[in-house]
């Protein structure tokens, strides 16, 4: 009943490069990174100096929480870890943290890598949407 961006197939297609390959952009003028991709650099206000940039799939874990009351459509795998990761380039992203075998070993600032996983499904017979999730590197 509730319309949400992630339920709209066209919206998901549009985001595919960003979700599948962490494609954002880099501004050659101000040397700033953008993720998700911007049509104009937020600082320089022009597209002139922007080039596509594929972010490295590595970064560090900042804050995390374990969500026991899952968002609708995210209840297929029980409680999940949700976190903020700072990529090597300094850009931060929000994602899930997978393969946490021992929460006691999670540390603020620890290394994580990003992997490709199913994010959610569009109902029982709908499409699956895929994207990145983080995995701790102990």
């Amino acid at each position, binding site marked *: *009943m*509730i319309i*949400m*961006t*992630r339920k709209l197939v066209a*919206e998901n297609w549009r*985001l595919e490069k960003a979700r599948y390959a962490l494609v954002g952009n880099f501004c050659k003028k101000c040397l700033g990174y953008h993720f*998700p991709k911007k049509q104009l650099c937020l600082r320089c206000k022009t597209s002139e100096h922007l080039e596509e940039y594929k972010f490295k799939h590595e970064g560090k874990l900042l*804050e*995390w*929480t*374990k*969500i*026991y*009351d*899952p*968002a*609708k459509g*995210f*209840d297929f795998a029980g409680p*999940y870890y*949700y*976190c*903020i990761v700072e990529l090597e380039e300094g850009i*931060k*992203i*929000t*994602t*899930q943290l997978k393969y946490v075998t021992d929460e006691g070993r999670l540390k*603020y600032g620890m290394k994580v890598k990003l992997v490709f996983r199913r*994010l*959610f499904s569009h109902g029982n017979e709908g499409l699956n*949407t895929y*994207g990145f999730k983080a995995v701790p590197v102990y």
Partner: protein
Amino acid sequence: MANPILDKVAIVGYEMTDFGDLYEMGIADMSNMAINGALRKAGVDSNEVDALYVGNAGSGQFLGQEHLGCLIASESGIYTNATSIEASGASGTAAMRIVTHGILSGYMERVVVVGVEKMTSLNKSADTQEALATSLDTIWESSMGATLPGNFALMAKAHMREYGTTREQMAQVAVKNHDHARLNPRAQFSNKLRIESVLNSKVLADPINIFEGCAASDGAAAIVMMAPDVAESYDSEPVFLRQSHQTHDYLSLQQRPNLHELRSVRKGAEMGYKKLNITAKDISFAEVHDVYTIAEILAIEALGLVAPGEGGKATEEGKTSLNGEIPVNTSGGLKARGYPIGASGVAQVIEIMDQFKGNAGERQLKDIEWGLAQSLGGAGGTSVVSFFSR
């Protein structure tokens, strides 16, 4: 810029419905009661109203109803221009703030602001949570598994890491606000809440438990705002809105430089103190946006009512209780008075009016000079901080 002598707006009449599961009433019914109750108390005839502003966060999500300004005007017998303002949890105070522009410019004299939300018609809590999560970045947060409590949990973890804030200190916010609500006949919850019950309740997102958040709620709250010279003939001792600042931080948490403070709230509070030439020490009492317990701790720190990092300790020591140094959420707050989203900012103003007008019954404060109301949109992307005095 507005003339500093006239740079204040009077609040004359005010009324709210009970907050809670108002099964018998639709969104227009509740609004009608609050609007016409406020007009009656103000002594203003509905055809003297220059405009109606509605603060509402999610009627499109909760009810599939948009175009709320027109609906509520039609169903309240107000035949003037009517507009709905959406700023998530700050919708009510954002609407109030916009009205000051119309009044201070001389374009309007008598305006009604109603905040309203009807949340209980969605019958599954997962649906309610989904509607609430539309106040986040629905692509880069909600589509990655975010929930509203999940976002506040990240902020709580950051605060705990930075300052050593404890679970018990956070839970005490809920205990205190229930204690206050027991003295408020309009509150949604009047039960005594024990700290053990909070700490042992179901985990939503570690470290936030279900009794640290708000239940779905219905309700409407309305105020009548007037130019000061117009107000004189309706109320010989009006209460004035003296400053109101709307400020923002990045919508999504990952864009913010840190999560242990509400930068939007701090910015708005500092702007207000500076304009009024007062400091946080001059504030007598405050209604803040305790959507989760950590949000009250973050708010009182950002408003300067306590030092950064001291919010948990201050709560534990009773500084923010009814009889403390700086009473916070004497109404019971969002937690216990209730949180019909769009209505809550206006309900905060009503508590401030009740306190200034001596109508607060058993929770009446004495010798108050400045009242402050702070509301948040989403997880702190929007903040409205407003200052009131006689």
